[in-house]
Each structure stands twice: as structure tokens, then as C-alpha cells.
């Protein structure tokens, strides 16, 4: 056998990692989502009582139910929160894509010796805490903030704009925060693209614009898809940005989850919200992967 014990452990490690850090917490949350709210510590029942033996296990499973999920489905607040999160994350992803693609394109076309520095600049914001950077946007966007002062002083507006505590502020915050996650994967695909492909396209009669849509864009698709997932998925569950920049009418599932968990101390309902969110994210990912597989086998 060429497979030694050592190499098997090495192969098993990532699975072990997933098992311990993803599957186990997932099962625990799933279990809580099927439990009932109770005034106890932790604040739900039932608890698995292994000392009672088989009867204890049976009683435990009998007490689990889908009450919380039915509740979620019946209260339009939650459905609206999900839909609104999808919308906010979707639109922000689109804006991030447009801005991120332009920046990535410019980076990939910059002189070779400048590129490492420019990429460094894209990553630079990560050196400051995410929370502080979002806080800084309050200073920029508020009524007497930097943006309004600047616009007023150059006479572009007569009245200060209300951006703070609106969905616009949330969009700005998300686009700003997640932009590097869009730029980097797209830059990676653009940077390794063979420049002579564009010359070939021109040689075969394409205008620059046609060459972009027929060659550059399809070849950067893997980067676009990766970037969109890296932005869309965390944006959907985003809590900090809508909490700090959004207003009372900004509805996002991350905020709802927070309220259920910390304000109402309804752990079972909060868990149900989390599980549904996970399912919501997994479905498109699986669909996407299936399609990728088909494409690869098809050729």
C-alpha cells in the first residue's frame, strides 16, 4: 500500500475540520431551532437527558417540533426581512461588481511594476478594524458630515442630503466594505489573461468593445462568479452595517436575528431564522455548482 497512515490523516484533516467547526454547530443550532422557548438557562427545552436511557432519548425527540418555522412563515415580518435582505444584498453585489470590475480591469492593465503596489492598496483597508471603518462612514454621511459639507461648499446642493439612517447608507457601507472581495478574484483572472487574445480578436475583425464582450468578459467569468459569491453571501446576513448606518425602516435578516437573540432572548426562533438563512444561501450555491459541473462535462 502506498497510502500510509500519515497520508490518510492528512486527507482526513479537512473533513475533520468541517465536521467539528461546521457540521457540529449546525446540528446544535438545528436542534435549538426545533426546541421551545423556556425560562431557564439555556433558555429552551428539551435538553437531552442521557441518564434516563432510551426513554429519555425518546422523550427528547418527541418534544422537538417545527413550531418556530411555522411561526416564521406566518409572520410577514420575517418573510419581508428575508426578501429585503436578498434585495439589498443583490443590488449591493451588482454595484460592487460594476465598480470592482472597473478597478480590477484598471489594475490588470496598469504597468507591471505598479501592480503589486496597487493590489496592496486594495488590501490596505483591512489593516483597520472593520467596525471602525463603518463608524467612519457615519462621520462622512451624517447631515453635518464631510460629504454634505463638501457638496454644500462647492454649491452643488442647497440643503444637506439625508443619507445617514437610510438604505442608501447601507448600500454605500456594503459596497465599500466588500469591494476588495470583488476586485481580487476578478483581478486574478484578468491578470493571467493572454494579451495576444485581444490582438487576435482585433485581427479577426472585432472592435475593442466587441473584443471585451466576446473575449475578456467570458474569460473573467470565474472571477466574477467568485467575487459575487464572496460579496453576496456575507452581505445577506450583514448585521453591523445596517445597524450602524441603516435606519429604523432598514429591514435585514441579520438585524432581525440579533433582536430575537439578544433582545427577546428567543433562542429557538433565532436559530430557526439562522437555519432558514443557511438554506437560502445553500440552494443557489448548489445550483451554481451543478451548472458548472454540467458545463465541464458537456465539452
Amino acid at each position, binding site marked *: 500500500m502506498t497510502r500510509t497512515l500519515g497520508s490518510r490523516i492528512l486527507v482526513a484533516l479537512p473533513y475533520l475540520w468541517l465536521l467539528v467547526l461546521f457540521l457540529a454547530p449546525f446540528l446544535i443550532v438545528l436542534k435549538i431551532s426545533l426546541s421551545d422557548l423556556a425560562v431557564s438557562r439555556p433558555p429552551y427545552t428539551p435538553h437531552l437527558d442521557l441518564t434516563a436511557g432510551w426513554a429519555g432519548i425518546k422523550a427528547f425527540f418527541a418534544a422537538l417540533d417545527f413550531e418556530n418555522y411555522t411561526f416564521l412563515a406566518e409572520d410577514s415580518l420575517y418573510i419581508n426581512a428575508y426578501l429585503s435582505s436578498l434585495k439589498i444584498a443583490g443590488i449591493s453585489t451588482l454595484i460592487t461588481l460594476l465598480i470592482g470590475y472597473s478597478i480590477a480591469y484598471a489594475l490588470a492593465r496598469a504597468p507591471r511594476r505598479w501592480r503589486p503596489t496597487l493590489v496592496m492598496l486594495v488590501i490596505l483597508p483591512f489593516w483597520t478594524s472593520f467596525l471602525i471603518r463603518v463608524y467612519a462612514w457615519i462621520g462622512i454621511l451624517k447631515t453635518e458630515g464631510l460629504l454634505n459639507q463638501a457638496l454644500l461648499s462647492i454649491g452643488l446642493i442647497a440643503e444637506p442630503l439625508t443619507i445617514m439612517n437610510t438604505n442608501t447608507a447601507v448600500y454605500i457601507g456594503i459596497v465599500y466594505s466588500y469591494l476588495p472581495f470583488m476586485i481580487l478574484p476578478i483581478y486574478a483572472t484578468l491578470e493571467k489573461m493572454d494579451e495576444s487574445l485581444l*490582438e*487576435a480578436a*482585433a*485581427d479577426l475583425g472585432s472592435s475593442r468593445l466587441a473584443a471585451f464582450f466576446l473575449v475578456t468578459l467570458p474569460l473573467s467569468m470565474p472571477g466574477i462568479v467568485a467575487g459575487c459569491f464572496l460579496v453576496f453571501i456575507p452581505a445577506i446576513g450583514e448585521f453591523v452595517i445596517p445597524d450602524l448606518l441603516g435606519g429604523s425602516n432598514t429591514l435585514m435578516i441579520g438585524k432581525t436575528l440579533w433582536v430575537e437573540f439578544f433582545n427577546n432572548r428567543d433562542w429557538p426562533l433565532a436559530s430557526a431564522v439562522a437555519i432558514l438563512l443557511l438554506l437560502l444561501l445553500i440552494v443557489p450555491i448548489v445550483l451554481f455548482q451543478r451548472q458548472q459541473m454540467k458545463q465541464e462535462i458537456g*465539452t
Partner: protein
Amino acid sequence: MTPPFAPWADPDAKPLIEIRNVTKRFGAFEAVRDLSLAIHEREFFAILGPSGCGKTTLMRMLAGFETPSEGEILLDGQDLSPIPPAKRPVNMMFQSYALFPHLTVEKNIAFGLKREGTPKAEIAERVTDIMRLVQLTDFARRKPDQLSGGQRQRVALARALVKRPRLLLLDEPLGALDKKLRQETQFELMGIQETLGTTFVIVTHDQEEAMTVSSRIAVMRAGELAQVATPTDLYERPDTRFVADFIGEVTILDGIVTAASRGGVGLSVMEGAPDLRIITPHTPPAGTQAWLALRPEKVSISRERPADADNALAGKVLDIAYLGNISTYHVALPDGSIIKAQESNRQRADRRGITWEDPVWVAWEEDAGVLLLA
């Protein structure tokens, strides 16, 4: 009998491409210097030269990816400079092939026709035809990364040819192929060129390849043309030592012109040896420094001095390169210079009985070598 194909010899023939005093500078560096050249319809024209001499730069100017710093390029008598690459009736087969990795073979080939707005039915027909011509029919639905090097090269060729360009540029098209496939492909290329009648300009490092495929060859040196001639002329009548040395194997002896007589000259190459007789159209005055270029296959080697040879020198065998079909003898003359002599091994080479250190005679006819003045 049709007359041989030689439009360049006809002063009235209109060339397809005329390159007039073209210079290309990158910064202060001149990659192409004051180059003039005419290429005719249906020619298979080869550009040959050492690395960095400006071959690719010249091709890129023809395709439109670079603009000449000075001079002009005409196609059918029309200045090409205002026409962008996309609009030129010129297509290029790239050194790296530059196939679109996300498109199938078929779609790669159809790419250019779609851009022209050719009707769908015609695209399908022309793509099918060209794929048959380059034997790619079975691979139509594959992507470039599922093809061998030779197949990719044929896709690149088909993609450029299907547009029926007036001029096809091939930048080292066979560089990535092994020797055998390369030779096969050379003949395929010639066949295709003859079938379609397209004018081909091919860049190559490989002088044998240039000799095989082309109607004429331009030898470039440091951005300039060293010589433009048919393969035979280039081999038999090089103008300079550079060209003689670049094309094929050669021995170059330097000497002083002594006397001119009977359509030739004498060349003194060594003290104590008789002057060499060389037939040449040149008439340099006595005392001029000149060189004799001698192809090894025109030099015979023997133990005794051949009685009827025009030129013969005595020497000693320094080295024997046995190449199977031929053997090349390196013979050292008394002054240390070396003459190469080649014998075909019609009988086994070891039967000839000449071996290392043997005293021998090398001999050649007075019209075997070429007198060079530069």
C-alpha cells in the same frame, strides 16, 4: 510548360505589398531600420534571421499592431497606415496561436466570419470546408485545451485562413512542433497555400524550413535586410559572409585578390599555397580583401592530390562528423584554418579508410565557391 513562378523578376508586375523605407523605433532603439521590400500575390515569402532582428516587429506592422515610425506600407498601392487591424485584409497566425480558450474549435474558426456579418449558412459552409482542409473535422466541438500542439496550430491556421485574407502572416507557426510533425506540416502548409492561392508571409528561425516552403526568402540582420532571394540563389549565391554563414553549412576562407582572368579571379589565402581560382561576376582590383564561401558538399576529400582538380589544398583530418547519410570531415590547413568537406556515405563510411590525423587533400572546382566582398 508554364513559365516558372517569378513575379518579382517582372519589372511591370504590381506587388501586393510594398514596404517603403520603413523604420520602427522603440524609444531610441531601432528594431527595423529603413527597410524596403515588395511581396507579390501568391508568394510564399519567408523572413529569416537571428533572434531579435525585428522579424516579429515587421509582421506586427503588416498586421497593424504597430505603426511604422517612418516610411509607409502599401497594399495594392494603397497606404495601410490609417487602417486599423480589424479592417485590414490581412490575418495573422500568432506565435502563441492565441486561440480563444472558452470557445470550441468550430467557434474559434467562425469568430472572424461572424464579425464580418457573414450569413449563417455561409459561415457554416466555409467553416466546414476549412476544417476539412486542415483535417480538424473530428475535433469541431473540442476546446483548445483538449487538443495536441499540432491540432492547435491547425486551428490557428484555419481561423486565419477562413477569412480569405489577401495576406496571411505566420509568425513561427511551427515552432512548437517536433521535427517530424514539423516537416509534415510544412508540406501541408505548401499544399494549402497552393490550393487557396493566398499570399503567405512566414517568419521562422529555421533556415531549412524557410528553404523548403518559400518562393523567396528575406534574411534580416539587426533590423535591416541582408539579402532577398530565392532559396537556391540564397544558398548558391549569398551576397555576404553573414548570409552565407546563416544559410546552411559553409567554410569561409579569407584572402587577397591577386589577378583577374577568364571570368574569374585568383585568391591568395595562404603563403606557400597556390592561388585559388574562383569564377565570379565581380571584378575586384588586385589587392582587395575578399572571402571564399565554400559549401562542404562541393568539396571532395582524398588521400592523393586529385589530378584534374581546379583547386586543391593539403591538410590533416581534425574531426569527422558521421551523420548517417553523410559524413563531414573537418580538415585543418597548415595555417590553422579549417575546411569542411562532405561525402555521402554511399558505401559505409569506414570503408573510405580516412581517419583522424590522416594527411589528406581537399579539392573543388573553380565554380564551386562564391567570392564575397563583404
